[in-house]
């Protein structure tokens, strides 16, 4: 009898980083939408400058994405060892997804650095 990784873990390893990216993207969008006036002035949000907030947000999400990418990697290794062939497809896909989406979240630093808050 082979040991198959928990089903939830398989799903999580696949879907977490895309969802993290989406969440990050929507949050970043809402922050700028809420804190930038039409004239391009920065009114800040929750007392903090929105730029600080965006940097912080991006940093946290990059860390989280890297963590889940690693999780997917571990799950795929585990599945490869224990499960029948091709069953490691989902975590393997999740790992590549993780690499891509971590990179995409990381990219958000570039506009922040060049364009500033608004």
């Amino acid at each position, binding site marked *: 009898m082979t040991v*198959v990784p928990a*089903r939830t873990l*398989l799903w999580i390893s696949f879907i977490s980083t*895309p*969802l993290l*990216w*989406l969440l990050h*993207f929507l949050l*970043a*969008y*809402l922050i*700028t*939408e*809420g804190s*930038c006036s*039409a004239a*391009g002035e920065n009114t800040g949000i929750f007392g903090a400058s929105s730029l600080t907030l965006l940097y912080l947000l991006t940093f946290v999400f990059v860390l989280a994405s890297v963590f889940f990418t690693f999780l997917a990697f571990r799950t795929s290794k585990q599945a490869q060892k224990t499960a*029948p062939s*091709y*069953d*490691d*497809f*989902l975590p*393997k*896909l999740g790992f*590549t*997804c993780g690499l*891509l*989406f971590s990179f*995409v979240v990381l*990219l*958000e630093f*570039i*506009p*922040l650095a*060049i*364009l*500033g*808050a*608004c």
Partner: protein
Amino acid sequence: MSLPYGSSNDDTFIETWKSAAGPFAWLRAVNNSPIGKRFLVTGFAFFLIGGIQALFMRLQLAKPENNLMSPELYNQLMSMHGSTMLFLFVVPILEGLATLLAPSMLGTRDLPFPRLTAFAYWAYLFGGVLMYSSFLLGVAPNGGWFAYVPLTGPEFSPGINMDFWLLGLELAEASGIISAFELIIAVLAMRAPGMTLGRIPVFLWAMLVASSMILFAFMTVLIASLYLELDRKLGTAFFSPELGGSTLLWQHLFWFFGHPEVYIQFLPAAGIVSMIIPVFCRQPLVSYTAVVLALVSTGVMSFGLWAHHMFTTGMPDITASFFSTMSIVVAIPTGLQFFVWIATIWRGKVIWKTPMLFVMGFMVNFLIGGLTGVMLGVAPFDWQVHDSYFVVAHFHYVLIGGVVFPLIAGFYYWMPKITGKLMGERLGRWNFWLMFVGFNVAFFPMHLAGFRGMPRRVYTYIEGIGLANYNLISTLGAFIFATGILVFVLNFLASLRQPNTDPNPWGAYSLEWATSSPPPPYAFLTLPIVKGRYPLWEQEQLDKGDEETVDMVKTLASWPLSWQAGVVTDVFTGRLREVFWLANPSYMPITLATGLAISLGAMIFDSYWLSALGLVIALIAYLVWMNPRQRPTENDKTIEEKFKRFGVAVYRYSSPTIARWSLFLTMGIALTTLGTFLFTYFFLSTNTPVWPPESAKLGGWTAAVLAQLFTVSGLVIVAWTQRYSMAGGRTKLIRHFAIASVLDFVAGGLQIWAYSQLSFSWTSHAYGSIFYLLAAFQLFMLITALVMASIALFRLNFNHDPAEQERVQVTVENARRSNYVMLACWLAIFFTLYLSPHLM
């Protein structure tokens, strides 16, 4: 003569799977193969209609200040061309192709809900017909396929043109959602034994991704069109700036649908390409994982692109830059796919047949469209060419080059599985070259016309500004392209007179080629046992495998004969798990669709009693639809026992696994709806200096808070039932659900009383509009949860048939889950309406 793999010569079995008999049988036909073909024919008909509209527009634009048609007619044609191509052609025809092919590609027999398949078709057809019936009255929609407010609002479009568009669209979109819903479940739960997630044909991975996108993206446009229809009919103020509404809200919601929509169309097309290239290169894809990664990541990223349609609306640079980044980055997965294709061709030996020609046409044209797409993602450049003919050129390169070319390739490739015939190669080449040349002659000059300052959607242009030549050439190209389409139609008609072809004329690898051309309605008598991604290349025989699976598959081939059996396999291991009764033919899908069409159509003419009548018809049809069907025979019961020994359960209604997936997806839809409403609320709040307006007074605080407490305690009681099993805790389950329902009922009453204390109406300002809508949604969710609980109570009380207990169990689980979702909505709405104004 030996039968092709998977065919049967058992009369009872064939009789069971044949389409329903009788003079009006086609009205009650269900099953994927007849309905899929109807989708294809109807979709193609709409394509031809939309194309003819385009030709008329091209004639009008062939020379400056042309007088061929009035601007009013031009705008109607322009609007209907866009709406037809995007709503009535591409998505339905791709879903139709998948509906037709998915079961045979997956090595199974049908989709999970045959009646829903039929309903999706009728809803699509009636939606399209409703939209087109406006031409009979000369009041075709004229606000563009994007229908920007306030141009389409009650003030600037007082006629009924846009009502036809909105209501027809709602029906057609509902059909799209339903098809997507079915395809997702089919791909996840109904596959041949041994077909794990990593062995699904790429086209179906693409359909899986696209369908998941449809579920979320289509909801936002449905809601946006609901707002607009409410604005037009009930005088709400979602889009009236003078009453606190926002015109940009429409654009956000529309493009949050509209951009994923483009990828919803492109991904299946890319899937088709990934299916065809290996066959005509005789090589596996260089990396299956990379292609699936590209499909999935493009699908997700497409939700972060919507505002690149709004760069000129004046957003802060940093916001624009996020969308710019994503519009550029989304090219990475597409590039990845491109290089996979090239590497595969590099390895392989190319066989030049028409499908391959069209795929190569796709690669050239789509490459151009993709490159201009990256350019448009560069915000400053977009400020210049946005809404110019450059954009028209770009998206035709993407949608014709990127979707229509692969689609035609797919038709040539899969025609043996649609009609059983191969289409002619010689006409195929004519077809390709006419389309390829015509397409480029028609659309390439449009880039230049855009640079010469030609805006989109103009019915004419003045002389002497350097646009005449580009437009004349484009018109010429459009007619060459149309000739290509004509050759396709001729080729198709000519092919119908040919004899049926072999099961696998192309030497392809996927399972649909294992069964005869055209496939029998049941696709496979003996389900194939899959051991790799390229079964027909890798496996000498499809019925060899481990003993248990072979035994199960053999048993399934001889039983059941008198009813249609659906087969559920495990999502990860691909092992057989369940056998269930598929729904049989019925008049109810068409009745339901008719009822809805009457209801929506009557609304256009403000005939609300007729509208209500339509709804009643729909409701009755729905109830009849859901009624139980035939009973099992003694023989069935014996064999059910045999299956139980394999660990395969047999269900006389829909399978519990499928029911769980359905509820899961429905919950996703409900939460998307909630999210869209909440986005609307907060978006509108940032749009006005004072929110809520001074005049808006919230009443009934105590009642509202009490209502929340009641629902929370109801949920606690429901959640408690998780501890009880069906076997021992039946009475406790009944008691808990009954108490929770009473609590929810009281909560609903209190909440309604609280809302009756309000000092404003939905017409006073946008705040009132979204407030009442959220309130209505809150009550709708409560009613849904109550109905689910009642069904659970009913089954717990009266259904003691031991064979049905799993089904009762699922009803209870679903009641519980819908209660969770209901509570989430209630608390989120309470927080938003009552608490959030005090936090900001």
